[in-house]
């Protein structure tokens, strides 16, 4: 089985290098095909591993060679395919294979075609390193690797120029890329500190060793570990307050948004918490804070999605909100539920994004949903897929989201955190509303695009074909809940929900009710002309539309002061004070040289005078210090 681990892991890398070899050449279709094929190979290997694991229940471990060895630290390149990582592998490789195929069509006219596939496959490789590593350092390699690929891919259209914030809230792809990278780095520092704590208290970064010894440690130390690792997770998973980069990351090509910023990379934080469950299950307090933050983000992000007019940003906020749901589950100890929602979410959110990509293509990269409408007529399949995805997202039976999201709400209720439950419940309503607001504005109603002179068309058949499996999974994935639970709880702790009977049915009913009413409200409102323009004047609308003014706040609070401080540090402190002090001291020495030059005038009588003065001084000194008296 070891060879399948290696094939699954390295096939994307080979593809990336292959495409990379053509990176500076004009478009070659072969790069897209080869990378997709290799990813399919990787997917098949992952499936083989999954079935093997189902049969044997024995994790497959592979050690390549030592990476860093020093002191008592030994970090090997070790990979493991256990219940959790196999689930992640299958999800990641499946979604990425489909996204690759889809991208062949989506990027067909882009001059960076080859480069795109190289980056995209490199991303998959990094993501696989992240989920397959058997130690925290390996995880960190993948963690930073996906960060790099995300930087490359957000900034893929690097040649676009910076726009003022009013024109484009993300300024430019390169700006958004840098923002994402730097913000992730802030979190990475936290994560690094977490690794240091683990190392200095346990002496290893290997999962097995760490998790075997963690319960021996002092609770304060475990708490610190948990907090710092979670800071790392907050960055990658764009949790408040490090969330602004995710919406701006939508500057990247849409397949990138589907793969990286919805299905896989952003869930790495959830994966980290799930993977580190032996740490987090020791510290339920921190778990509760994680859950509380998750619930907050779930509502917070959903509220921003309510009013946004940008097709991709709405979906991005929705991703943010769903990540919040996952963290609620993970924080409350229902690790398998978090993982389950992670998986189903990957399917339907990727589907949603790919659908959005089709729409963008049809609309010449227009993103404002108020310039669309009535697209159902020309883009039937895309519309159907997106409706399926939205239903799944809203948690309507029998779509996948119903099973996973409802479970999270149950968990919150069961843990007696009724406030969290209520927030998530409200969030579910908002989710349903904004999803169908988007559907209504894009696919139904008045055909506003005609005014702007667009000529939409349906996407290529193979792009739709690539979406079809996702659509299928978005419908049926939920029914795998029980085998899934059984499978992953071989590794993860089980979580028993104590709610049964009438209460459980009532909860499901309540959740479905608010989801359905959200949908109904959206459908009703936007088939009757939407909200009145006065709504746009209100404070709440502006607050939500401007993302609670948080980007502006960050700009004013951190970026600009940092720029100013840097300028001051350079021009005032470094040049005026530090350097000037040095020059001043040097100047004194120089000046005393000039001043002393008169002594060496060359005039004999002056020199004689100096001599006499010296003589007298010596005489006086002799008399004063004469030892004989």
């Amino acid at each position, binding site marked *: 089985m070891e060879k399948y681990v290696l094939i699954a892991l390295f096939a994307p890398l080979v593809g990336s290098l292959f495409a990379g070899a053509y*990176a*500076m050449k004009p478009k070659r279709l072969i790069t897209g095909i080869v990378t997709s094929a290799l990813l399919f190979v990787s997917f098949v290997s992952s499936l083989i591993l999954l079935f093997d694991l189902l049969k044997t229940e024995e994790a497959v471990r592979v050690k390549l*060679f*030592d*990476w*860093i*060895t*020093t*002191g*008592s*630290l030994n970090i090997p390149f070790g990979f493991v395919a256990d219940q959790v990582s196999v689930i992640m592998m299958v999800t990641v490789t499946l979604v990425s294979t489909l996204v690759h195929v889809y991208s062949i069509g989506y990027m067909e006219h882009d001059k960076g075609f080859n480069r795109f596939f190289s980056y995209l496959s490199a991303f998959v490789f990094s993501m696989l390193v992240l989920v397959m590593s058997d130690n925290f350092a390996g995880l960190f*390699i993948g963690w*930073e*690797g996906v960060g*790099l690929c995300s*930087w490359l891919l957000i*900034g893929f259209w*690097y*040649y*676009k*120029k*910076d726009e003022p914030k009013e024109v484009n809230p993300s300024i430019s*792809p*390169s700006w958004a890329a*840098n923002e994402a*990278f*730097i913000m992730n*780095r*802030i979190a*990475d*520092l936290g994560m*690094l*500190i977490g*690794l*240091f*704590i683990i*190392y*200095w*208290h*346990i*002496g290893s970064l290997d999962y097995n060793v760490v998790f075997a*010894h963690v319960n*021996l*440690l*002092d*609770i304060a130390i475990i708490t610190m570990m948990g907090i710092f690792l979670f800071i790392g997770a907050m960055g990658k998973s764009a949790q408040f307050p490090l969330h602004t980069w995710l919406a701006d990351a939508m500057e990247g090509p849409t397949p990138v948004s589907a793969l990286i910023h919805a299905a896989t990379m952003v869930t790495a934080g959830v994966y980290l918490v799930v993977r580190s469950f032996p740490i987090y299950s020791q510290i339920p307090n921190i778990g509760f804070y994680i859950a509380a933050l998750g619930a907050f983000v779930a509502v917070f992000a959903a509220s921003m999605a309510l009013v946004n007019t940008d097709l991709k940003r709405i979906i991005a906020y929705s991703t943010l909100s769903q990540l919040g749901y996952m963290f609620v589950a993970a924080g409350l100890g229902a690790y398998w539920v978090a993982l389950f929602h992670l998986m189903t979410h990957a399917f339907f959110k990727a589907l949603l994004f790919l659908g959005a990509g089709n729409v963008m293509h049809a609309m010449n990269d227009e993103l404002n949903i108020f310039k669309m409408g009535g697209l159902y007529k020309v883009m039937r399949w895309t519309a159907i897929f997106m409706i399926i995805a939205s239903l799944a997202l809203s948690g309507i039976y029998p779509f996948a989201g119903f099973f996973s999201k409802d479970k999270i709400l149950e968990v919150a209720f069961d843990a007696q955190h009724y406030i969290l439950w209520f927030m998530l419940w409200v969030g579910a309503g908002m989710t349903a509303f904004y999803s169908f607001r988007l559907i209504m504005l894009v696919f139904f109603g008045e055909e506003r695009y005609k005014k702007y002179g667009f000529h939409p068309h349906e996407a290529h058949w193979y792009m739709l074909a690539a979406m079809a499996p996702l659509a299928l999974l978005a419908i049926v994935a939920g029914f795998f809940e029980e085998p899934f639970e059984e499978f992953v709880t071989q590794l993860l702790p089980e979580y028993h929900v104590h709610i049964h009977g009438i209460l459980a049915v009532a909860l499901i009913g309540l959740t479905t009710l608010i989801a359905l009413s959200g949908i109904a409200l959206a459908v009703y409102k936007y088939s009757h002309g939407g909200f009145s323009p006065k709504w746009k004047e209100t404070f709440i609308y502006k607050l939500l539309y401007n993302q609670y003014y948080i980007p502006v706040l960050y700009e004013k609070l951190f970026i600009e002061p*940092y*720029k100013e401080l*840097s*300028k001051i*540090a*350079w*021009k005032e*402190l*470094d040049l005026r004070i*530090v*350097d000037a*002090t*040095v020059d001043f001291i*040097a100047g004194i020495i120089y000046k005393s040289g000039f001043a002393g030059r008169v002594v060496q005038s060359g005039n004999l009588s002056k020199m004689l005078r100096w001599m006499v003065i010296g003589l007298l001084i010596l005489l006086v000194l002799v008399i004063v210090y004469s030892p004989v008296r």
Partner: protein
Amino acid sequence: MNHILSLLVFFPALAAVLGFVVNKENIRVYGIAVAAIEFVLSLFLWFMFDPSNGGFQFVEFIPLIPDYGINYQLGVDGISLFIIILSTFITLIGLISLTIEKNVKNMIISLLFLEMTMVGVFVALDAIVFYVFWELSLVPMLYIIGYWGSELRIYAAIKFFLYTFFGSLIMLVGMLFLAYLYYLATGTISFSIPDWHRLILPYDYQFWLFLAFFMGMAIKVPMFPFHTWLPYAHGQAPTIGSVILAAVLLKMGTYGFVRFSLPIFPDASVALIGPIAILAVIMVIYTAMVAYAQEDMKQVIAYSSISHMGVIVLGTFAMNVEGIAGSVFLMISHGIVSGALFMLVGNIYDRKHTKKLSEFGGLAAVMPKYALIFGIMTMASVGLPLTIGFVGEFLSLMGFYKISPALTFLGGMSIILGAAYMLRLYKLTFFGPITKEENKKLPDLNWKELTSLIPLVLVVIWLGINPNPVLKPINKSVENLLTLMEKKAITPKAKEILGHNKVELEAK
């Protein structure tokens, strides 16, 4: 092969002297050939080096002035081995990439002479020999900056020379006094570094001597607030000067810490961890901010050098294997990465004769190969895993975490701020639309530039993925060093810190 070290030291110097008779057309080839032979020699040294032995190897000893304990004593251990290879490697790469036309013969001769002094510093086991090479290295650098530099070259060269010279004079006084103390303790004078390593000094002497050595090293590193000569030197020096200055000459300072300060003054080193770490943290954060504000490509990298050196200093004073080995590794990786970055800036300067950031933008479209290599080096500079930059930074910070989590956190800001200034540089240079008409026709890297850069890229990735061949010998020597320090420690604090520098699993 008993004299391989002498050969390593004096071969370039001899070749430099012979270089005077080589005619001008052939001097480049001659220089590259000499540097290549020297590099192969240093690789051979690595090949012969026994990684399981943490002590000094290939030791040579010729009495010079035995009455005063001054001897010609050379040797390498795991700590110096790779810095020597780094020196020869960077010199070779620098010579290949050399684009200077003006008086190229003198330049190549100076470079070969400089190579002798660099190798000499790292192989010297006698303080006087060390000092002689240390000071001699200033001379060719002074010439390189002062002759081939840009407008302010004289100011920059003199500042560089006088500033570092001033520091090393204080260090010299320290050395003389240390030899005198050795005389008091044993009855014979000795300038031999291994002898000094065995000397146990009272704490007060350690403290003042540590400060004397610190002045010499700190100015060389350069540590805040003694760093202001560096931006001028880099700003004015020709590309090759900056490459060697950043890659090798700065490492002399941190090497000095490891070679002199730690083993000779263990108690003072431990006692002064706090102030030095604070200086290092200031250095990391403050110069990273200054780097962010720069308007000139080269100055960004110059200040970034200072910032990274701060992390090296933190690792050096971590007092555990992880930290010190990490800092030695970071010296090497920073040498490679900053050298490469300066070379890349040189490439664009050759094309445009300006380094102003405002002159660029959108270069990724016209110079993709350049953008790719620059990108790899940028990522190595910000310490991305699987590049050479990560290993050292990770280990240095991890090591220092044992001493002080709070200061490590502040020092770790380097990974955030480093990303900020490097990505700003990258964005301003390579991203966005091409704003200047003349930039649309810039040629991409030519074969000569590629031959000098690709080896660096390979090293960056190879040692990023597999740093162990380098780390293992370093580990061994660092372990020896720490055992020595622990044995010598006299103050309770030093005993405490040096005795507990390993992982301890503390049960609840």
